[in-house]
């Protein structure tokens, strides 16, 4: 994934643009380019959080404004040299972002539109505070007296260069984040935050980190712009323009790509400039509005997204042969076989008036394949969800070694080596098949570094037979293949315990046989497996031990063929007839 062409192009372009003022172009061009740089910086910084993670912030104006006023206050009032105000502006904005994020990201229900509104509200609050306190106080702040170093002989060139620097820094940051663990984490969060957490992605920390980076860059851009305009007012700074334009630019250019906002910024700024004179200014805005609508309707992934899709239509490069012929061992060193690996102790969970788990007691022994069965509504999936941290039980303990999973966050449970598949496969739709598995390798129990994770991901894809689909989007796979993708994801996290939730449902008999062979192989390599199924024939063929749940409690446990004959079990399944 680490292509070098991007950064090289970026450095070259930056160098070229930095030398441009030496050619003494008309002042108009320097101004126009500066504004383009500003918008590139603002849109790209916004995109690092919002485009990548899907948490669309309508409050970018607040962080930008914080930067503007930090520079204004420090330079005009306290006569701090301009250059030093910039890192301060970035820091203030980042701190503000941290404060907002620390509170807001903790609230689980606050996704999507609510986050957008909340951040908008923050902007208005900040604007009011700035307006009513000595920070601005009403009349605005004048910066015309501030000393600015003159590179190339004019103030304008200096500001141009600072703007260029901010834009380059923002784009470089976006590139770096996109190609790092953080980027993959953000994309996973954007696609399916709950699934991501269950696979070990530390969502809270990732979002907070992205927010702080985003705010820092916005703050610096704001500081530079304060100097450009030389007179800042609350009305101009905190207007709706910044928040709305950054969204527009990123969406038009492509929100999931580091270059997207740049394209959008260049396009929109050029358009606005084209309309800036006289009677075209106003209809020009209407055109921009129309463009936004058309893009959302027809090109929802923006220009870069569209380009990426076209690129994908070419047949994928053949994936390199899987690393090494030695079969991977799983759960190396997890203790002697048959020792208790996981113990559920009197676990209760009630939701929406239904007692889903009514005191579950069971043990999972190391190295076994444990079947977990029961009629519909007996609590099997709920139990899996509870063990993996998707739900928190009301009472009871779930001990993995010494750790009580009931009191542990979902992503930490994944770090402990508990992996699960979802009954209805939940791949991250906008990541490739390979990246889907890589997320598990990077963030799961194994916590591998980037290179090792890629290798591990390819290995397990090969193991389940999906190697040639590595670069395809998951939606191109059929159900059988998606189930195997779920399996590969679970395995790539180097688990000690694998929870398979109805992995056979929807498969044809031939596919079932194939799947069973694969599961036996996984078990042979050392993984302990809990196998939830309805297909009783398969359960009897595969499992070492069987546990039967009914109405949220364990009603039978033991060797499969004898358990299935116990009267309580027969009754649970077939029911009793009343006269």
């Amino acid at each position: 994934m680490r292509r070098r062409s991007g950064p090289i192009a970026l450095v070259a372009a930056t160098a070229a643009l930095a030398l441009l003022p030496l050619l003494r172009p008309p002042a108009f061009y320097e101004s126009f380019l500066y504004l383009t740089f500003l918008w590139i910086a603002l849109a790209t910084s916004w995109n690092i959080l919002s485009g990548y993670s899907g948490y669309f912030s309508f409050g970018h104006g607040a962080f930008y404004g914080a930067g503007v006023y930090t520079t204004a206050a420090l330079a005009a009032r306290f006569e701090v040299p301009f250059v030093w105000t910039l890192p301060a502006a970035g820091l203030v904005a980042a701190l503000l972002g941290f404060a907002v994020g620390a509170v807001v990201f903790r609230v689980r229900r606050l996704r999507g539109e609510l986050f957008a509104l909340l951040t908008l509200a923050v902007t208005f609050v900040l604007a009011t505070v700035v307006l009513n306190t000595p920070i601005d106080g009403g009349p605005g702040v004048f910066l015309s007296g501030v000393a600015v170093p003159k590179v190339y002989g004019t103030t304008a060139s200096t500001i141009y260069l600072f703007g260029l620097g901010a834009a380059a820094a923002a784009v470089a940051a976006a590139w770096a984040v996109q190609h790092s663990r953080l980027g993959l984490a953000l994309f996973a969060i954007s696609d399916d935050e709950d699934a991501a957490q269950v696979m070990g992605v530390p969502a809270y920390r990732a979002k907070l980190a992205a927010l702080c980076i985003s705010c820092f860059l916005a703050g610096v851009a704001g500081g530079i712009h304060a100097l450009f305009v030389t007179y800042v007012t609350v009305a101009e700074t905190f207007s709706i323009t910044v928040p709305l334009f950054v969204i527009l630019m990123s969406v038009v250019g492509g929100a999931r790509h580091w270059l997207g906002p740049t394209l959008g910024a260049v396009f929109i700024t050029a358009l606005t400039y084209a309309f800036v004179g006289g009677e075209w200014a106003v209809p020009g805005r209407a055109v921009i509005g129309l463009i936004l609508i058309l893009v959302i309707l027809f090109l929802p992934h923006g220009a870069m997204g569209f380009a990426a899709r076209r690129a994908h239509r070419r047949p994928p490069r053949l994936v390199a042969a899987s690393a090494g012929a030695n079969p991977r061992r799983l759960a190396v060193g997890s203790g002697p076989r048959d020792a208790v690996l996981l113990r559920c102790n009197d676990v209760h969970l009630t939701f929406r008036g239904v007692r889903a788990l009514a005191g579950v007691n069971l043990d999972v022994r190391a190295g076994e394949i444990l079947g977990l069965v029961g009629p519909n509504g007996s609590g099997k999936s709920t139990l899996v969800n509870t063990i993996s941290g998707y739900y928190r039980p009301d009472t009871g303990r779930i001990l993995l070694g010494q750790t009580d999973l009931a009191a542990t966050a979902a992503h930490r449970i994944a770090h402990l080596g508990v992996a699960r598949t979802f009954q209805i496969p939940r791949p991250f739709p906008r990541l490739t098949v390979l990246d889907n598995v890589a997320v598990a390798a990077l963030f799961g129990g194994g916590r591998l570094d980037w290179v090792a994770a890629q290798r591990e991901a390819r290995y397990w894809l090969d193991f389940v037979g999906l190697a040639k689909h590595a670069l395809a989007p998951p939606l191109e796979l059929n159900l059988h293949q998606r189930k195997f993708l779920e399996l590969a994801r679970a395995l790539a996290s180097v688990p000690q315990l694998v929870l398979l939730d109805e992995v056979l449902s929807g498969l044809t008999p031939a596919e079932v046989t194939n799947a069973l062979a694969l599961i036996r192989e996984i078990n042979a390599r050392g993984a302990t497996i809990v196998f939830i199924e309805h297909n009783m024939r398969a359960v009897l063929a595969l499992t070492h031990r069987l546990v039967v749940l009914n109405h949220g409690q364990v009603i039978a446990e033991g060797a499969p063929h004898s358990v299935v004959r116990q009267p309580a079990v027969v009754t649970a399944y077939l029911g009793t007839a009343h006269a």
Partner: protein
Amino acid sequence: MPSATLLAQSLLSGIFIGGLYGLMGLGLSLFWRYLRLINLAHFALAFLAAYLTYQFVGVLGWHPVVAIIAIVPAFFVIGAAIQALFLRFAISEFASLLVTFGMTVIVESLIQWYWTADFRRLELGHDGGSLRVGPLFVPVTEALLLVVTTVVCAATWAWLHFTYAGKALRASAEDRDIAAAFGVDHRRLALVLAGACVAYAALAGAFFALIFTLTPAQIFAWMGVIFAVVILGGLGNPLGVLAAGLAIGVSEALTMAVTAPTWAPLVSFSLLILVLVLRPSRL
């Protein structure tokens, strides 16, 4: 500390502006809750109706009631058309925010192109009077607005709770498939509701023109407050929207009377933030 009369007058003006907030928020709230779409264009359309009212009453000399009768049904049709567009393209809740923002920008530019950014104010000879109630002044138009808002909110609430169509709409918003299994035609109800929501916006806009000065910039300035009203009132609850509008109007007015006017926005937005963080389940 201001005098009792001043406070009372502030309270009264807060109530009146609260009525306008409520009427403005009603359409947005219903649209969001029952159609699962955030119609930012609501604001632009309200102000378009305001400008049209200005045009018909101020420039062409029509009677305000005639203008309202002409404008509101037309906007009903516009609302239904927008909903038809949303249905045709199967737009998600989040995408609706962006698409309607685009529409807002388009409408706002049209407004500015035709009427320019100059301030526009309706100078009304007759209706602009006030009643005196004790030491207080009660402006007639604004009192009428409050009455209209209350009636509209109450009537909408009643429609949602006592008619088959209203109940069908609520059911369909909750579980469209099962509602269909019992015969509910979601599409038709959606078109009617969308039309009504934009018609309410137009009504609010018309009153706005009768009371306040118009500039295009207000379209964006009002977004924040009205969202606060909508969320505080509980989505889809006509009586809640009215109550929230009044609460915010009054608290803003009192804040303005006791401190400086520029502190007023802090009230509604701080409340909004608190509600969103502490009780996100309201939505």
